[in-house]
């Protein structure tokens, strides 16, 4: 039964800290085999949502399911299929890298030692070094190895690339997460919460933007790129105020205008062509631009 269940299902999740609503009626559905992005500003409720999914925090109300299972009632069954890299990575200071890997391996039935050796080598970690002597980036690398080696069905990453240098970050995203998913594409799911949206651009299949604990936008990445586009037009003379319904004008300076369209590009292009522009171009927005334009329309338009 659980084989066909979505990897993650969240219905009306509410999580309150005192008077603060960290998550306020969030809904989410992540199909198995997808790489799903959870985007939001600081304090939007991303980490709280993830912690509710893993039974690290009890939600005030709402329902969460991982592979159709209740993370509270079926805690071990859920966690056997999940690996998690928290936003603040910490290890026991007396353990070496090797001890730490052994420690986390002991919780798992399956552990890919070949992957472990290869990643330790790739990240240039010294197995005999104590974790207390590792840099922040190295600790994140170690946490990632601990998460990847059990080859879980669901990999939950909370700001996984913070602290990594650009080379390691790119290497990690492309060769580690990408390769991890490619090995069993229909089965392995990744849920990634990050600010560095551009780094994950090519990897994300679907995403949700949350703000103040609520869904603002949920879209398939390809659909989002088709829907959210930037149109740039240059006219022979100042076109004056333009009436372009369903768009947001990014900037209008003299003869040039730049607007963002949301699913109505054909209509807008038609309207602009009617004014005989000297140049007219259209390009898809990146996920980061979609994120910014969704959450900061005023500032983006300024």
């Amino acid at each position, binding site marked *: 039964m659980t084989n066909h269940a979505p990897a993650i299902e969240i219905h009306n999740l509410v999580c309150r800290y005192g008077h603060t609503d960290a998550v306020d009626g969030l809904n989410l559905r992540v199909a198995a085999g997808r790489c799903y992005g959870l985007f939001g500003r600081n304090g939007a409720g991303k980490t709280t949502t993830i*912690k509710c999914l*893993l039974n690290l925090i009890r939600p005030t109300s709402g329902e969460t399911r991982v592979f159709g299972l209740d993370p509270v009632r079926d805690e071990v069954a859920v966690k056997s299929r999940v690996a998690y890299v928290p936003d603040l990575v*910490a290890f026991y*200071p007396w353990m070496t890298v090797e001890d730490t890997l052994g420690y986390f391996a002991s919780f798992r039935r399956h552990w890919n030692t070949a992957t472990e*050796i290869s990643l330790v080598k790739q990240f240039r970690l010294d197995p005999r070094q104590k974790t207390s002597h590792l840099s922040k980036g190295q600790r994140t690398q170690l*946490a990632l190895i601990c998460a990847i080696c059990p080859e879980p069905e669901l990999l939950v990453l909370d700001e996984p690339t913070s602290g990594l240098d650009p080379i390691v970050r790119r290497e990690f995203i492309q060769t580690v997460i990408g390769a991890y998913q490619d090995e069993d594409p229909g089965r392995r799911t990744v849920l990634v919460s990050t600010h560095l949206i551009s780094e994950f651009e090519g990897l994300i299949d679907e995403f949700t933007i949350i703000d103040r604990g609520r869904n603002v936008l949920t879209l398939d990445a390809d659909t989002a790129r088709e829907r959210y586009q930037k149109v740039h037009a240059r006219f022979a003379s100042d076109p004056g105020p333009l009436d372009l319904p369903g768009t947001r004008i990014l900037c209008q300076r003299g003869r040039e205008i730049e607007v963002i369209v949301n699913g109505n590009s054909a209509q807008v292009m038609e309207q602009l062509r009617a004014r005989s522009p000297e140049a007219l171009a259209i390009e898809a927005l990146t996920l980061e631009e979609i994120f910014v334009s969704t959450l900061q329309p005023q500032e983006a338009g300024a």
Partner: protein
Amino acid sequence: MTRTAVLSPVLSKEIRALLPFWGASVAAIAAALVWRESHLLDLGFFAYVVGSLAIGAQSVGQEYTYRTLPMLLSQPADRRRVYLLKFLVSAVMLLTLAALAGTVFADVWRQESARFSVAIWPVLCGLFLAPLFTMICRSSLAGMILSACVPALIWMVTLAIAWFWFGIETDRAANIILGRWTLGMILLCPLLGLLGWRRFTELEATEVASPALHLPRWLSSADGARGYSPLRALAAKEVHLQQLTFGVAGLYIIGWAISLLGQRYIPSWSTFPLGVVMLLYCMGLAIMIGALASAEERQHGTLDWQLLQPTPAWQQWMVKVGVALGLALLFGVGLPILLNQVTPLEGFRTIRMSGDLTVLIVLLTASSVYISSLSSSGVWAMAWSLPVGIGVALFIQTVSGALRWVTLKLAGPLMADIVTGAVAPSSADPADVIIFAARAFSLTLAPLLLWFGFVNHTSSERTVRPIFQQIASIAVLIMTGIILVGGVLAFCEVRSR
């Protein structure tokens, strides 16, 4: 990368996390066993109690200390099994400690009926109460302190009830209640264990602030400090770091109020060893305040950016030390004196509220601040303070022994007794000389400890060499102090001849 360990990594991790606390307690008890001097036995027993509570608190508290709770709870392991393993490891350690303590302190606990109770209650508190309080407060140190204070208060209340309801005399009631109380605790343990187990199965890995004492806004709030100088903001922050001190002082006031009522209405209450309780409170509070000062900031992860604020590090340290010493003197000396002035309690007659207590509190706070500057958390600093104290006492004894041996060879047995303070010089009150010398020595040692504490606090370097140099400097100062006191006493004797 082979995985050929004798113990499972999970089990060895639990053992490794608690081993330093167990080791420190065993070392303290063993030292007391070897030297068998009354003050060392007292310190050894105190170390046994603190060690037991620290082991209990750290069994779960280590995950807070090292911030590993999210990683641990996200592993596919049944939480009940994880807690059971923690429980079993701490149980083995606590029972071995209790067995050792039972052997060593058997002579001290004269009343045979009380031996089992006295030996077993730290185990029960460490095993069942400390983890529960640690999870409630999300702090090992708070769990450790509360698991000591709460049963002590309950015991006093039970004692009062025994007299009021059943009219049993206090000393007799104490014996009866100690036995019944132990029995009650043993019966209550499954319930407490169940509560702890339940708490762990529902434990949340959250950074939300734990239940805290709310200090007056003008004293504690960052908003309130905005309009003031950075030093005032620093002082407010330091006071907030020390909020556990306020809690312990509050519990002391409650205990004192119960004693006051007991003294007023129960004729035999005066036999209750209030002086000892007060001394334990003063010393324990001084150690706790020092332990909190530096290590807790390190544990919170705020030390580095705090030091990078545009206020000189020495000023920050002065504020820290000033608040620590101020609170230690206020609550460790001022509060007992004030309460005793308001209504004197019988048991306090045995304790001299003099400058000696003040010097002792200053020295203990400074020592604890120094240990705190080397520790990763308050509970570490607290647990290591007593074994270190015993180590220092043994060192003083050894140096005195060496001084005596040298003087014996050079000037005969009488002068050897005089330089070690065993025999008074012919003219001069040796007590005055020793007290003066001890005060002068303490007042020299305290600044040195605080200076080394400052060096450690502002440096993230934790290599053996500088710590060894510091310890060697402290040892040299102690030796010099002992030799100087001996010299003064010898001089008094020579002059009188």
